[in-house]
């Protein structure tokens, strides 16, 4: 699924990122294949894939909501934002809506601490969030 000729173990992260962009998630067959061609154990590949919040081992929805779970955002009441996303989408962190419209995840710092609480919707950063803003942003999603 991903060309691995001449690739070494240190290229693993780049290959996983490539696969993530191409397929939207990392299927087990792909990780097993990568492990084989890079001469690594499956558990090591899985370890890298699950360490990074921007790599996903499960199929994701059309829109991926990532709310920062780090301290600055939590101090700025990210919990209220998390709850309002739960209300709007009907799913909890780590879940994907049955209709495939949204995936909801908590992520590590996305570097927008000065404008906390922050979230990423697909590849866009949204900052200074309020529950009101959330419903506006999510309504615009297809």
């Amino acid at each position, binding site marked *: 699924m991903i060309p691995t000729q001449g690739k070494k173990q240190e290229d693993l992260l780049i290959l996983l990122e490539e696969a993530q962009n191409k397929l939207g998630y990392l299927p087990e067959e792909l990780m097993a294949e990568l492990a084989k061609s890079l001469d690594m*154990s*499956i*558990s090591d590949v*899985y*370890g890298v894939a699950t360490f990074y*919040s921007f790599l996903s081992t499960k199929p994701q929805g059309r829109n991926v909501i990532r709310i920062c779970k780090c301290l600055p955002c939590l101090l700025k009441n990210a919990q209220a934002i998390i709850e309002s996303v739960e209300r709007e989408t009907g799913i909890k962190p780590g879940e994907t809506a049955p209709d495939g419209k949204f995936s909801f995840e908590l992520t*590590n710092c996305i570097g927008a601490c000065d404008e906390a609480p922050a979230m990423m919707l697909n590849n866009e950063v949204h900052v200074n969030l309020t529950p009101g803003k959330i419903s506006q942003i999510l309504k615009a999603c297809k």
Partner: protein
Amino acid sequence: MGEITVTINGSQLSGSEGMTILEAAQENGIDIPTLCHRPELTPIGACRICVVEVEGSRTLVGSCHTPITQGMVIYTHSPKVLETRKVIVELLLASHCGSCFMCDKANVCELRRIAADLEVGLPRFRVRKRYYPIEDVSPYIVRDLTKCILCRRCVRACNEIKKARVFGIAYRGFDSKVVVDFDQPIDKDVCQDCDVCISFCPTGALSRVKKLGEEKKGKALVISS
């Protein structure tokens, strides 16, 4: 191999180049507690139990992986070191399941022994504990990850001694876990008749499969009246 002179706890000692602080101390009869470290395995400095104070160093250093250098001044049991070790064990115990009297390894558990040696009392820290189901699918090994302290000794033993690379570390932070393949219960053919990881586990997380009625296989006890 050049000779290196270091000062440990006030006395001048000599060691050879490439030696770690831990090795130099042990050679001279100074006992530094270790948990994730085993002489057979690559040191990784994961548990921090073996920290020592080195003059001129901003932080305490892990003695299992820090090589000695000429003129190093080391304190292995200063108040700061002892206090740090104690807190480290307290933190390990805080997220450990903590029911020693229910555990098969109770009296041979290295974590418990170190906690006793350092006189760590009841845990001060309240941490949410994580419970995992016991994995007893394999006929050769039982894993109880609730007792795992993530020292990575099983991972290294399997990689370096058995060279089977069964284990890996997955997830992140509090969710970190020793996994097999895609986080499946352990059930591998290579584990047949191999007890390497079990013998390296400091806690009760890894154990052999105990067969029911094993105690009855011994010589019959005859009571004559």
